[in-house]
C-alpha cells in the first residue's frame, strides 16, 4: 500500500483552478520530486499534503488515513520551507527542540534527540548559535534537523536549494540524498530545476498548469517523455515536422526511416519527430557507425567548455536543429557557415502527435 495516496484532488483559488484532479501514489521510503515551471501547482500540491491548503474535491490519504480536516500540527508530515523559516529569536538547539515541546519525552531525552538531529545534519556543537550567525547552507541544515527530529513519516521540501549558490547546492543535493537513505523517510521535493529532480529522485512527477503530465523514474522521463511539453521541459529536444506513412516516417530535413512502436507517442498521421541534441553527431568531428546522414549548414556555435553546441540549418526546415558534441582532446572545431554532415540514429527518434 502506498504511503501517500491522492485521488481526484482539486483546488481552486477563487476563479483560479490551481489543482485540476491530481491522482498520485507515493510509496514509503521513496525520494519523490514534484517538478514543473513556476505556477504549475507543485508548491500548492506540497502545501496540500502538509495541510496548509484545504482541498475542494478528491481525497488525500497519508498512511491510509483520510486527511480531511486534519490540521498541519496533527499530520505525520514535516516541512522544510523555501525561506527555511528558522525562528530568529531562538538558538539553533531551541529551534530543533521546538517541535518536541508537546511530546512526552523528558528533558534529557529531548536534549539527546536534539543533539542527535544536529549531529545527523553535520551541525554538532552548533546548538548554542543564533540563527543570524549561520550561513545559508547551515540554516538549511537547521531546518532539516528541526523537521527530522520529529521522525515524520514524510518530509516535505519546498525548493530548499533555490537560495543557495551553485557549489553549495551541489553539496546539499548529495547530502539530502544521503540523509534520505540514512533515515529511510519518504522525501517529497518541490523543484523547478530539472537537473536537481533527475539527480536526486527515485521518481519524478512533472506538472503543468495544475495537472500531472507524467510520473516516472528519471531515466524513463528523459528517454520516453509522455508528451511534447515534458520532452521540452526536461533537457533540450529538436522538433522536426514528420509524416508517418505505411510504417515509415519521413522526417523533414533528415530523411526517411522506420521506427519501432515504442518510439511512437500518440497517434499516427502528421507528427513531429523529436531528437535530443546528444542523439545526433557532427560526422566531421566524431564519425559514427550505422548512422543515417543528413546535410546542412552550421548557422551558429556555442562553446560550453565540456561541450560544443552546433546550430545547424537543414534544407527545407525553418529554424535550426541543435547538435551537442563532447569536447575531447584534439577534437575538431567546425566553423560557422561551413557545410555540416549530421549523423543520426533512427532508434533515438521519438514521434509526437502534431
Amino acid at each position, binding site marked *: 500500500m502506498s504511503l501517500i495516496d491522492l485521488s481526484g484532488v482539486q483546488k481552486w483559488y477563487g476563479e483560479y483552478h490551481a489543482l485540476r484532479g491530481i491522482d498520485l501514489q507515493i510509496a514509503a521510503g521513496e525520494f519523490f520530486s514534484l517538478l514543473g515551471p513556476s505556477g504549475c501547482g507543485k508548491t500548492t500540491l506540497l502545501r496540500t499534503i502538509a495541510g496548509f491548503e484545504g482541498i475542494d474535491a478528491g481525497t488525500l490519504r497519508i498512511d491510509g488515513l483520510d486527511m480531511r480536516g486534519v*490540521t*498541519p*500540527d496533527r499530520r505525520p*508530515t*514535516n516541512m522544510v*520551507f523555501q*525561506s527555511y523559516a528558522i525562528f*530568529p529569536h531562538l538558538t539553533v538547539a531551541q529551534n530543533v527542540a521546538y517541535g518536541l515541546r508537546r511530546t512526552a519525552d523528558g528533558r534529557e531525552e529531548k536534549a539527546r534527540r536534539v543533539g542527535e538531529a544536529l549531529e545527523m545534519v553535520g551541525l554538532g556543537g552548533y546548538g548554542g548559535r543564533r540563527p*543570524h550567525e549561520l550561513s545559508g547552507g547551515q540554516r538549511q541544515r537547521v531546518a532539516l534537523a528541526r*523537521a527530522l527530529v520529529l521522525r515524520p513519516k514524510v518530509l516535505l521540501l519546498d525548493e530548499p536549494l533555490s537560495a543557495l549558490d551553485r557549489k553549495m547546492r551541489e553539496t546539499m543535493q548529495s547530502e539530502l540524498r544521503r540523509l534520505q537513505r540514512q533515515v529511510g523517510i519518504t522525501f517529497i521535493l518541490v523543484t523547478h530545476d530539472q537537473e536537481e529532480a533527475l539527480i536526486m529522485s527515485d521518481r519524478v512527477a512533472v506538472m503543468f498548469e495544475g495537472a500531472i503530465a507524467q510520473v516516472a523514474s528519471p531515466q524513463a522521463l528523459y528517454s520516453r517523455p509522455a508528451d511534447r511539453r515534458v520532452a521540452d521541459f526536461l533537457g533540450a529536444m529538436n522538433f522536426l515536422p514528420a509524416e508517418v506513412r505505411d510504417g515509415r516516417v519521413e522526417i523533414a530535413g533528415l530523411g526517411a526511416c522506420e521506427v519501432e512502436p515504442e518510439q511512437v507517442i500518440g497517434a499516427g498521421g502528421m507528427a513531429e519527430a523529436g531528437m535530443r541534441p546528444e542523439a545526433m553527431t557532427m560526422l566531421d568531428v566524431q564519425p559514427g557507425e550505422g548512422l543515417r546522414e543528413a546535410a546542412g549548414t552550421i548557422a551558429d556555435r556555442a562553446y560550453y567548455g565540456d561541450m560544443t553546441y552546433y546550430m545547424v540549418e537543414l534544407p527545407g526546415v525553418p529554424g535550426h536543429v541543435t547538435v551537442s558534441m563532447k569536447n575531447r582532446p584534439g577534437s575538431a572545431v567546425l566553423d560557422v557557415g561551413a557545410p555540416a554532415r549530421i549523423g543520426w540514429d533512427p532508434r533515438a527518434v521519438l514521434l509526437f502527435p502534431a
Partner: protein
Amino acid sequence: MSRRWLLLYVVLYMALLYAPIALLPIFAFNDGQVIAFPLQGFSTRWFEGLWTNRTLHSALWNSLVVAVISSVLAVVLGICAARASARYAFRGQGAVMGMIMVPLVLPEIIVGVSVLIVVNTVLGLPLGLWAVIAAHVLICTPFAVAVLSGAFQSLDPAMEEAARDLGETPWGAFRTVTLPLVAPGIVASLLICFTISLDEFIIAFFLTGASPTLPVYIWGLLRFPADLPIVMALGTLLVLASIVLLTMAEIFRRRGAARAGRKDSGGFL
C-alpha cells in the same frame, strides 16, 4: 561645496527645530515671574510648587489613566489591523485600511467636534474621561498600525506555518513565534500611543467635561500670567518624559528590527 552648504542648512534647521524646547528649562529655573529676558537668577521654586498642587495632581492622574487605557486599546486594535493587512489579502482591504488610517490626517478639531456631538446631542450622555479615551483610541490607532505594520510585514509568513507544522496549535504558534518577534514593535507602539494621548489637547478640550486632563489644565494656566513659570517647569518635565518614552520606543523598535533580521533605515512612520 554644495554639500557643505546643505549640511550647514540642515544644522541650522535642526537648531531652530530644537530652539523653542531649549528655552523651557531656561525659564523653568528662572527666578522671575515674567517669562522674558533678562533672567532673574536660578531658582527651583516653580518645580517645588508642582509637588503641592492638588489640582495638577488630579489632572496628571486623569491624563495617565486616559493615556494608559487609550494606548492599550489602540495597540490591540492596531495589532488586529496590522496583522490583517500583512497576513491576508482580501477584497476591500485597501478601503478598510484607509478608513482606519484616516484620523492620521483628519483635523483634530473635526474628531473632537464630531465625537462631542454624538456624546452630547445624539446619546445625551455627560462628557468625561471615557469620551476622551474613546477619541484618543481613534487617533492613536493609525500610529499603532504604522509602527506595527513594519513589525508584521517583515515577519515571514512561513514562520507561523513552520510552528504549526512542528505541532503547535494556531494560538500556540502565535504565542511562541509571532508574539516574541513583534513584541518590540508592540512596546514601541504602546509608548508612542501613550505619548500622543498624554500630550493631546485639542480633542480633550472638547470632551473632558468636569475632570480636566493635564494639557487642558495647562491651557487653563496659560490665561494667568502668574502661573506661566509653573507651565515652564511642568513643560520641562513633560518634554523630558516624552523624550525618555520615545527613546525607549525607538530602542524597542530597533531591537525588533534586529531580531527579525531586517535592515533598519526607517523611522516611526
